[in-house]
């Protein structure tokens, strides 16, 4: 797997590309007028296919790619996507062949090519002389280089690599960009990836970043309000090519097709999709519309059942613990007290972690959902036990005594006189416990339960739209809590018809 920060590809510098766009647009307008250019293009396309046939390209072209190198080669379930993949797909259409991708780590890529595990590599292979001697390399389909990135307000007024002297630059310590920055006099602050580097930059912890142009463009294109800008580019550029075994004979057809794709804007369109800011990031409103449904589904299929099951089990545990707590015998009292004290004295997060991560150490492996149910119902049990005990103890002693004077045993008195009144008293605090529980289910996102928050995180991550997605999640919880408060009022009225308003 190539490190994400090494020298990699772009089609053309920004200004040139805008010119290209203009020319293409002009061409599109002029072609029908001229009446001849279109057939010529169709003819060229035919010639690529002819070449492909002559070159004996297989009907299904097997293409080696990593599948884990965003945004160039990524995998979604069984499908591959990414810049290189889309270019390859378009190329295959033009060549009239099917494509089958073979996921291969970078380290074994060329060995696998040699071993005929696939026919072509599409994985940001950088052109160099040595490679060109060993393999068949296509014409470049994109080129890249280094860029110098600063915060939007650029407090240090850095304009060129030369200005880096004495500045702090956020870099992956093992990358060649770190060296380049260091050579220019920068002090290197180690970071793990692009996102962390960009955060550091925006927060002013560093003054600049030197990194791959395409990676930077992709970050800017997919981040709302990126808050950074590119001020300089390195002189060297590197070109990305497709590679096949020596003497494959594929390259004339591929190069012709690439030429066509370059001419008709196909490559530019794909490039724009990944690396131009103008049209990539979905608006927060699109994201909300798109995810409101799935998040509601997560609420209905996970959050609510999780809450209901845990609450029901928790109440049972609570009743047992409350009775233990009020027992006259020392042992059940001590056990119940310790349970309640431990549950109430330690964070739910740790309780979740212990059940999910630590129990496996004792040989007990539990899936996220049941682990969540166990942790939450034990937690509810501890809190509700105290609620029930307090509710029972809040019933005036006179009620017990009156029950005794009509001849009842303690058990009958508890069942017929005390509990029905305690139920009314317990509704508000139990409903608080229930509302806390609803909110506490959000913690289970940390042990991989795909509930509301986890769904929001998934939705927000690709475009960094955390504000919109978390706000939406908060609204869902708020609504659930409001509904529960409303139900609480009804329960109070129902159970409390015997008390003054």
């Amino acid at each position, binding site marked *: 797997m190539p490190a994400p920060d090494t020298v990699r590809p772009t089609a053309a510098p920004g200004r040139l590309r805008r010119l290209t766009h203009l020319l293409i647009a002009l061409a599109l307008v002029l072609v029908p007028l001229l009446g001849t250019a279109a057939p010529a293009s169709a003819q060229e396309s035919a010639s690529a296919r002819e070449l492909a046939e002559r070159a004996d390209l297989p009907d299904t072209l097997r293409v080696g790619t990593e599948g884990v190198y965003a945004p160039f080669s990524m995998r979604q379930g069984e499908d591959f996507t990414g810049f290189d993949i889309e270019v390859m797909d378009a190329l295959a259409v033009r060549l009239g062949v099917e494509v089958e991708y073979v996921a291969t780590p970078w380290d074994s890529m060329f060995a696998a090519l040699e071993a005929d595990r696939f026919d072509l590599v599409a994985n940001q292979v950088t052109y160099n002389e040595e490679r060109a001697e060993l393999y068949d390399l296509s014409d470049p389909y994109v080129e890249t280089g280094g860029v110098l990135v600063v915060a939007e307000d650029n407090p240090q007024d850095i304009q060129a690599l030369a200005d880096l002297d004495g500045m702090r630059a956020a870099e992956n310590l093992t990358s060649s960009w770190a060296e380049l920055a260091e050579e220019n006099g920068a002090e290197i602050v180690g970071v793990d990836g692009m996102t962390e580097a960009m955060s550091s930059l925006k927060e002013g912890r560093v003054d600049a970043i030197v990194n791959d142009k395409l990676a930077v463009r992709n970050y800017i294109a997919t981040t709302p309000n990126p808050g950074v800008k590119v001020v300089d580019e390195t002189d060297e550029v590197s070109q990305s090519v497709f590679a096949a075994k020596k003497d494959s004979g594929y390259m004339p057809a591929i190069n012709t097709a690439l030429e066509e794709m370059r001419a008709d804007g196909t490559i530019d369109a794909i490039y724009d999709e990944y690396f131009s800011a103008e049209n990539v990031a979905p608006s927060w409103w699109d994201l909300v519309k798109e995810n409101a449904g799935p998040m509601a589904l997560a609420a209905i299929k996970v959050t609510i059942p999780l809450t209901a099951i845990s609450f029901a089990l928790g109440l049972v545990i609570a009743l047992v613990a409350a009775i233990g707590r009020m027992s006259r015998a020392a042992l059940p009292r001590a056990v119940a007290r310790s349970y309640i004290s431990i549950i109430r004295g330690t964070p739910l997060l740790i309780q979740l972690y212990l059940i999910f991560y630590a129990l496996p150490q004792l040989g007990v492996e539990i899936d996220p959902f049941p682990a969540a149910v166990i942790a939450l119902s034990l937690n509810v049990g501890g809190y509700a036990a105290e609620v029930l005990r307090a509710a029972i103890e809040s019933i005036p002693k*006179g009620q017990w*005594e*009156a029950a*005794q004077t*009509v*001849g009842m045993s303690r058990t009958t008195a508890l069942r*017929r006189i005390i509990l029905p009144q305690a139920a009314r008293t317990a509704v508000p605090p139990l409903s608080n416990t229930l509302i806390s529980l609803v909110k506490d289910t959000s913690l289970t996102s940390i042990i991989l339960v795909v509930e509301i928050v986890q769904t929001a995180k998934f939705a927000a991550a690709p475009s960094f739209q955390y504000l919109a997605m978390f706000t939406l999640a908060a609204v869902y919880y708020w609504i659930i809590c409001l509904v529960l408060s409303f139900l609480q009022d009804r329960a109070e009225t129902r159970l409390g018809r*015997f008390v003054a308003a």
Partner: protein
Amino acid sequence: MSDRSSTSPVVRAEDVRKSFGDHEVLSGVSFDVGQGTVTVILGPSGSGKTTLLRSLNGLEVPDSGTVTVSDVTVDFGSLTPNRSGRLPRAQREQLTALGRQSGFVFQAHNLFAHRTTIENVIEGPVVVQGEDEGSARERARALLEQVGLAEHADKYPYQLSGGQQQRVGIARALALRPEVVLFDEPTSALDPETVGEVLTVMRDLAEQRWTMVVVTHEIRFAREVADQVLFIDGGVVVERGAPEQVILEPQQPRTQAFLRRILDPL
């Protein structure tokens, strides 16, 4: 003293003693209550009147002494509670049997708050005595009629005035068909105007020859209705006799001082 008190005793307390911690509240109290008679217990605040009354039905468990109600006798000195204060099953059942001989009317009435008037009255007969609900309701209606609450049968306690609640408490006690009805200051939490409606009901019960033991400060009630008056103070019975004797001609200085404070506050 009316002739009624000469009948055989229904309640007999013998040498009842009770301490709370170091504080001896009852230091050996004995008395009899004849069948169909009214006994009024007088005494200063904190003198142990409530404790004594509660000892008669096992709501309070004296340290020693014997209490007999009808044919149930409990010798409190022979009870053997364990370390956590719990009695052996047989002894608990003895106490329960004692309790079932009497009805109890509380100062704070203690109606079951989640039950309507009539449900309060039938709870004991139906749940404890196993009476069929239909017949219990019928009797309950008659009792409510008697205490003047027929039209309030389906109200919850909170919807009744203090005097009405106290009368429900009386009906609830009577519904158990007890041998004796115990009253602990039944009117002292009431509005002065409504005291009368409760006392009137109690006088009617006396006339129907219910056996009653009443702790009260209503001296007029004692004088007009009681067959026997007990004045207790310092944990002992200071004076005991017919109301004319104890109230009008008290022999003991403590009784005299107490009555003066009550009757002539200014």
